[in-house]
């Protein structure tokens, strides 16, 4: 087949661009998170004092933090799915750092030093370390499948970004169950819980996202 003949077939293939990359990544996260939400509703459920928690600055900052992380990870994931590496997504990390710094600064200012360790260790760190990766499984799987349509400059990095995004989505769900609202706890254990998800995304992405 001559190249010109192949071009005829490519032109005839009017499979319309299904969706811009950003939208397919977005819908993949939502679809995966819905599965996790069902698991959450059946197995965990929201904390009993949820309404009261909304009135505390610690809980609100925790939510702000996971949402900022979700936005940042979405931007990184879309950027990593393209063949040309861009750096615009890095701006999305800035809000995360700002909220983290503000939360940590406030906590250290208002909390007596002898309380720091207790708040850092929290009440269920191990549970957090296992539940966030479990809740991230479905979003990670859907994301990686969606990214097969993409053309990442580095399949491993795209997988890592997908892992980060899946972990952020899982953290956003888990935050409604977790009683530990101290920024000391959140900034320690949530990122630690994301590590296995990012590693899994990297390993699977390296193989699955080649093109």
């Amino acid at each position, binding site marked *: *087949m001559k*190249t010109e003949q192949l071009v005829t*077939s*490519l*032109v005839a293939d009017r499979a319309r661009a299904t969706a811009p*990359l950003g939208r397919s990544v977005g819908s993949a996260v939502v679809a995966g998170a819905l599965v996790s939400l069902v698991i959450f509703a059946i197995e965990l459920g929201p904390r009993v004092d949820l309404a009261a928690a909304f009135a505390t600055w610690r809980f609100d900052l925790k939510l702000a933090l996971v949402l900022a992380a979700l936005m940042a990870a979405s931007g990184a994931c879309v950027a990593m799915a393209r063949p040309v590496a861009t750096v615009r997504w890095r701006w999305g990390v800035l809000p995360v750092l700002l909220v983290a710094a503000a939360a940590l600064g406030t906590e250290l200012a208002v909390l007596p030093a002898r309380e720091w360790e207790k708040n850092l260790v929290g009440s269920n760190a191990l549970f957090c370390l296992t539940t966030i990766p479990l809740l991230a499984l479905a979003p990670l799987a859907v994301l990686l499948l969606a990214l097969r349509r993409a053309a990442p400059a580095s399949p491993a990095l795209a997988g890592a970004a997908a892992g980060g995004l899946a972990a952020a989505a899982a953290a956003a769900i888990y935050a409604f169950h977790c009683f530990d609202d101290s920024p000391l706890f959140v900034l320690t254990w949530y990122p630690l819980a994301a590590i296995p998800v990012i590693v899994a995304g990297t390993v699977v992405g390296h193989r699955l996202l080649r093109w």
Partner: protein
Amino acid sequence: MLSDPEDLSALMRAARKGDDEAYRRLLLCVAAWLRAVASRGLVAAGRPNADCEDIVQETLLAMHLKRDTWDEMQPLQPWLRAIARHKLVDHLRRRGFTDHVDIDDHTDTLAAPAAAEEGSALDARQMLGSLPERQRRIVEGISIEGQSARDVGVRMGMSEGAVRVTLHRALRALSDAYRKGRT
């Protein structure tokens, strides 16, 4: 060639809106550029030029199937170069060539018009042969016999929509075959 940033990006934008003629012009223009890039890449790697048209076709397929990953806010050329580099490196790596390949060394030195396509690539014909019967007949009907999707549908007793769906599958299968199928 590949020198006017407005032009190619505009062609792709028009193609996205359904302008087939713009898409054809873009693909032919890119194919000519790819031919020069692949040819120089093969020379630099000490490989025979016989593979050239295969690389061109594999890269065109990738560009077509992955066109959603182009960000309209960015110029098209860097995106094209990235895909071309990826496919050239991949092609050479499959043949055991692991040195650094930088197509940017070659892209701006295209003074002479690119060499014309040298016959039909043998492997490309084998690739077509590897497709399932129905997919192969549709690609042959459209590509080689130059029929419209509708005509192919009438001949094969399929709706035009079904022809297009099968054509899309065939192109994906061709792309996969290029990527995995060979030593």
